[in-house]
């Protein structure tokens, strides 16, 4: 079966700086694929290349089997997009937003109007058809943007940081809906810098940094391949001194300010040294995708 999205050697630069430097991607139909990376890693530019909005300097991409940007317009007829920043029509009601957006796909008003209740039900906006957009909360706007992206019943859905700025309730609702969409057989390509989100939703993720994909695989496989299974985070004024005596008890230690991250397969002995230390607080947890992400992309701030 054809890949839902396939990219080979995509390159793009702005003002002499390479933003995307040779990206390869392959997303199978029905897969939920996450593109992870710090701010400025090139995620959004990669999505814009895949949607055929901009032209790569070299490389090629196919979306729903069609070459982009050459046949991007046809390809986008089968694709839904949730952009990073909501761009709903503020002058319209919820229903008008869906109907007007459907027109861009050549859908008849009647056909869209018939689907509005189901779309709003899906987005947790039932009964809000007549509400004006400025009266909606941030989470509601995000869900309406998701409903709008589904107006053409797309095979592939692109979401650029779908839950940034949302409260936990809204985030969990979006996650639940995205799972439902994958169960329906739709392909999802999302970017995020919430590792928890990627770990929960994505069958496969690619970690992107400085325009390159530096790791790719299933979240669990990436954790197993790149990081020790157990983590102890130790925090407090005595952490530095404690660090010296505990160094040999962990496979790997990382110091960030007053916090020490200890990684290893067996950390029982290390945990024993923390007993009765009231100058130290600690957290023992299994390793997660965020540990992998920070190990691979570093802890330096990106803006």
């Amino acid at each position, binding site marked *: 079966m054809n890949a839902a999205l396939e990219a080979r050697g995509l390159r793009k630069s*702005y003002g002499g700086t390479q933003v995307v430097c040779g990206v390869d991607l392959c997303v199978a139909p029905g897969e939920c694929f996450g593109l992870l990376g710090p701010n400025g890693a090139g995620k959004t530019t990669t999505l814009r290349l895949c*949607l055929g*909005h*901009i*032209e790569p300097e070299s490389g090629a991409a196919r979306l729903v089997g069609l070459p982009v940007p050459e046949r991007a*317009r*046809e390809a*986008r*007829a089968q*694709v839904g*997009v949730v*952009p990073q*920043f909501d*761009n*709903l*029509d*503020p*002058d*319209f009601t919820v229903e*008008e937003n869906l109907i*007007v*957006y459907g*027109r*861009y*796909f*050549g859908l008849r008003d009647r056909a869209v109007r018939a689907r509005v209740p189901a779309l709003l039900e899906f987005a947790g906006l039932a009964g809000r058809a007549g509400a004006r957009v400025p009266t909606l909360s941030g989470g509601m706007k995000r869900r309406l943007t998701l409903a709008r992206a589904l107006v*053409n019943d797309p095979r592939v859905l692109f979401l650029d940081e779908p839950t940034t700025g949302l409260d936990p309730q809204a985030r969990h609702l979006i996650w639940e809906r995205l799972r439902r969409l994958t169960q329906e057989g739709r392909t999802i390509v999302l970017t995020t810098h919430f590792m928890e989100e990627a770990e929960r939703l994505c069958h496969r993720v690619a970690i992107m940094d400085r325009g390159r994909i530096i790791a790719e695989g299933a979240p669990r496989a990436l954790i197993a391949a790149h990081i020790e299974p157990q983590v102890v985070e130790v925090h407090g004024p005595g952490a530095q001194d404690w660090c010296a005596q505990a160094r040999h008890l962990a496979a790997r230690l990382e110091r960030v300010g007053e916090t020490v991250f200890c990684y290893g397969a067996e950390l029982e002995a290390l945990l024993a040294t923390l007993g009765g230390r009231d100058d130290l607080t600690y957290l023992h947890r299994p390793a997660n995708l965020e540990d992998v992400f920070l190990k691979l992309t570093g802890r330096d701030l990106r803006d």
Partner: protein
Amino acid sequence: MQRARLYAPPVPSLRFVPVWRRNFLVWHKLALPSLLANLADPLIMLFGLGWGLGAVLGEGLGGRSYFAFLAGGFLASSTMYAATFESLYSAFSRMHVQKTWEAIVNAPLTLEDVLAGEWVWAATKGFAAGAAMLVVVALAGYAESAWALAALPVALLAGLAFAALGLAVNALANGYDFFSYYLTLVLTPMMMLSGVFFPVTALPAALEGVAAALPLYHAVELARGLLAGELAARAPLHVAVLAAYAALGFYLAVVLTRRRLLA
């Protein structure tokens, strides 16, 4: 973006229609205040100057009243301003502030489709302003014959010309303030040079030549003649110049907007 793609002529398509309809739906919600805002200024000027200054001037302009002279000028200039404001401030809001264009091009429409929709929409606003002026002028008794109805297609053509120029300026704007340059340095002098308030023959010879290159001059000549019940002597030239401004202006707008958004 490859040069060939940047400069490729836009391919005509009816895909612009839903974009036009989107803007119409927004306008429709506040149509009356919007129309009044477009008309109040030229109407105050027309009646104030037409009657006030007209009383002083008498019938000095080829045996016709000054009001009748101004009516053609203001029909053209109100078309110009309505199309211009829509293609500057409103289009900029949709392009840059609300990111409406970005939402639309995620559907199977191209940037050219969006621009064509904005172009025809802004021209429609110009047309509506021109048509409303025509109604007022006719009610005031200054439309001489059914020829005045031919001022409607003139308003549409002038609307297309000024909407195209406005969209080209929009593609270069870094904020709303940028538009002041275009309004004060281009449109205001054009108002003075295009025979809106006084015949261009009153200008120094050199400036008369400049006037002949301005789109507003050609729109004024056509509109004024039609209100008086006659076709301007050089009507084909006037139409050709307006059509050239519309076509080349739109092409320029497409290239500049591609450079801005697709690079």
